[in-house]
């Protein structure tokens, strides 16, 4: 499997393509192993695309054409990430969702604690006065 820096498999590729793959992976994010898989696959694809190119000039021209053919880099990264996420097994989805819920709960708790600590008590009802009023003897006239 190719390493994420791509030096092992992408030495024969033009610099613009290596940079293109690097940017896709950077935008894609997600797990390292998945990114390595995608990188290896894209590298293999580009290697095949360049197998008929003899000169560096030819390669560079083809590289520019391929980059255009691949379309919007950001959109491609989003699509790859989304598709790879769908591939993960159910248990991994459950684990991810559990951590997300825990994260949200911790965030809510932190916000509540900040609100609670930073707030100042505001007396709106004087219960002592009300109690005194209740037990105050009323003179019978």
């Amino acid at each position, binding site marked *: *499997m190719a390493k994420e820096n791509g030096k092992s498999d992408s030495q024969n590729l033009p610099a613009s393509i290596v940079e293109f793959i690097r940017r896709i992976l950077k935008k894609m994010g997600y797990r390292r192993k998945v990114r390595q*898989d*995608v990188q*290896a*696959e*894209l590298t*293999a*694809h580009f*290697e*095949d*695309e360049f197998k008929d190119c003899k000169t560096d000039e030819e390669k560079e021209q083809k590289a520019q054409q*391929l980059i255009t*053919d*691949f*379309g*919007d880099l950001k*959109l*491609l990264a989003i*699509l*790859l990430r*989304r*598709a*790879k996420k*769908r*591939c993960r097994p159910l248990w991994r989805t459950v684990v991810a969702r559990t951590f997300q819920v825990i994260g949200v709960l911790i965030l809510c708790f932190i916000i509540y604690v900040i609100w609670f600590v930073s707030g100042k008590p505001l007396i709106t009802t004087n219960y002592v006065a009300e109690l005194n009023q209740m037990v105050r003897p009323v003179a019978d006239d």
Partner: protein
Amino acid sequence: MKFESQLLKGIAPVVVLEILSRGPMYGYELSQAIEQRSGDILTLGKGTLYPLLYNLEAKKLVKGRWEKNQSSRKRRYYSITSKGKGQLAKQKAQLRELTAGLNLVFGGALSTA
């Protein structure tokens, strides 16, 4: 010809499944095969191919595995699963019906054009 993306969106998975039903292929090989077998009419965008393959893999319609080819290069070969074959048969039947319906609407002009 440049097709409407929505039109191609529904057709692309069927085309990929059909090509893969003839034998396992890797991404580049698959894109070439689609072009060749459609007489260069269908050209799946390179940026569409891999997300499409991963989506089909997520639906368990195709299965990918790393293998070395003749030139001892590692490639990810995709093969159709039994679920994929079932889905392909279903979609082919739907396409046949759709084509028949469209032919009736267009007075057979679609098949002769």
